[in-house]
């Protein structure tokens, strides 16, 4: 049985492995090779000169990277605070309502991200759903909060909320009620229980949720374009421009590589920390 399991395991992993080698691994290798090519070439048969990486520092592209990472960090912290009470309630307090909430949140994920962000533009713009109605009722309007850094962070929080909520709820569900009860019985305060019992025991969920929202937000493009009106340029935006208007594939590849190394490093660190069998409900 053991040897049969081994053989079948390897065989059944093949279809997905082929898909990922052809459509994930190979493209990343192409990006890596393109990133060391001279500027503005379109083929891989040139002498590598690493000039694109010099351009990254010389022409201030590192600023976009820092903006993207900074906004991703802020939105991740906000998401942790916003999602914690709700995840807690989903795991421990709500009964039927957890299912309702789950369905509602998952359904919102199926709506194209740009339709939802466009909806926020209609809601928040001058003469939009909120300002328009307030002005019609009170006669006094206000300036639109659109087109700035805070609204981009708001957009990131909005779009990536499910990616924090579900892992966090899963993590909190792993905190045994007995342990919390014991701590209370021994006289711990609400804060002590939070910091010394719940946070450490829910750590896998916190790590997965934070990493997922951070890496997705760091590579996000639509929020800064649709809501931010390009008040700041996100790194993904620079990458897109390098490929489209700039017609400079090696530069775009080098910028992608820098982002890929940061995100890939974090992602590898994150997935190596979690036991998927435990999280996904192994029964045996």
């Amino acid at each position: 049985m053991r040897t049969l399991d081994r053989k079948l395991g390897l065989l059944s992993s093949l279809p997905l492995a082929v898909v990922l080698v052809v459509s994930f691994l190979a493209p990343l290798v192409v990006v890596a090779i393109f990133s060391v090519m001279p500027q503005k070439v379109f083929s891989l048969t040139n002498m590598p000169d690493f000039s694109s990486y010099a351009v990254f520092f010389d022409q201030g592209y590192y600023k976009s990277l820092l903006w993207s990472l900074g906004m991703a960090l802020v939105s991740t912290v906000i998401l942790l605070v916003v999602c914690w009470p709700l995840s807690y309630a989903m795991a421990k307090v709500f009964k039927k309502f957890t299912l309702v909430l789950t369905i509602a949140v998952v359904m919102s994920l199926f709506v194209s991200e740009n339709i939802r962000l466009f909806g926020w533009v209609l809601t928040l713009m001058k003469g939009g759903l909120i300002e328009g109605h307030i002005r019609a009722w009170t006669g006094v309007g206000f300036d639109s909060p659109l087109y700035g850094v805070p609204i981009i962070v708001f957009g990131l929080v909005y779009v990536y909320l499910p990616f924090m909520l579900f892992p966090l709820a899963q993590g909190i569900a792993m905190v045994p009620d007995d342990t919390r009860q014991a701590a209370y019985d021994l006289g711990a305060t609400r804060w002590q229980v939070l910091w010394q019992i719940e946070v450490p025991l829910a750590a896998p969920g916190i790590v997965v949720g934070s990493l997922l929202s951070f890496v997705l937000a760091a590579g996000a493009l639509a929020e800064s374009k649709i809501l931010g009106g390009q008040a700041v340029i996100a790194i993904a935006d620079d990458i897109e421009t390098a490929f489209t208007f700039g017609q400079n594939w090696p530069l775009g590849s080098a910028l992608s590589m820098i982002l890929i190394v940061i995100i890939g490093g974090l992602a590898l660190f994150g997935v190596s920390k979690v036991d998927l069998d435990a999280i996904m409900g192994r029964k045996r």
Partner: protein
Amino acid sequence: MPTSRSTRIVLYVYGILVIAFLYLPLVSVAFASVSRARYLSFPIKRYSTKWYGEAVESSTVSELLTTSLTVAVLVTVISVVVAFFGALAFARYQWRYRTTFQKLILLPIFFPQTVLGLALLMWFNSLGIIPSWKTAVVAHLVWIAPIATLIVSIRAYSFDPALEEAARDMGAGTWTILREITLPLLMPGMVSAALFAFLLSWGNFPLSLFTTGADSTLPEWLYAKMVSGYSPLVPTLGVMSVVGSFLLILTALAVAWLLRTNREARAAQN
């Protein structure tokens, strides 16, 4: 410690507020879609369904829908087949590289999709393939096939390997077991995976953006119109796409609920 009544009420209100927060922008889009004016401003003065009529008659729209639908259907079929075997490797069989495999298939989900799309564009280019909706199918698979695999895996974790072993002891071959035992047991997971795959492909924008070449999917067209040159058809098509997706989900939920009550009723009779 049981949560106090007032805390519970606060938490329920908070949950409802979060749902409202998630859906508020869609409310705005829905209102915008029935405004008669070409240039939108709230409060809406005259309502009309004129833009819906134009959307239905437009040939651009039907082209966009055909492309989106073809891509989504192909992605769904391929993802489900790949996910069936992938889930067995992920959760069922104990083989040597199982944990490595589990972690590797998570990587594409963590990657920024825009970067993946561009990487694919360069890869197709260096292979000499001209991008079209067919390359977009490959692009969607990078992200959707792993998600479908995870969904089927949840189901695969919960089934008892003894069922397969019993069939083998009675002389069934590997294919017979897969067809007669494993496939029916994993079926509910595969139906959810198919639903997810279809809807995620239908709504996907970042992966399509660079990989469809001259063809265009619905989310791509909407984005192009949002960024440059507003069209009153944007909210209308947005609403139509959202309503379509939601109807599909609600149908699926209703069918699942009917099947369950039906089964429970039969179990109660026996």
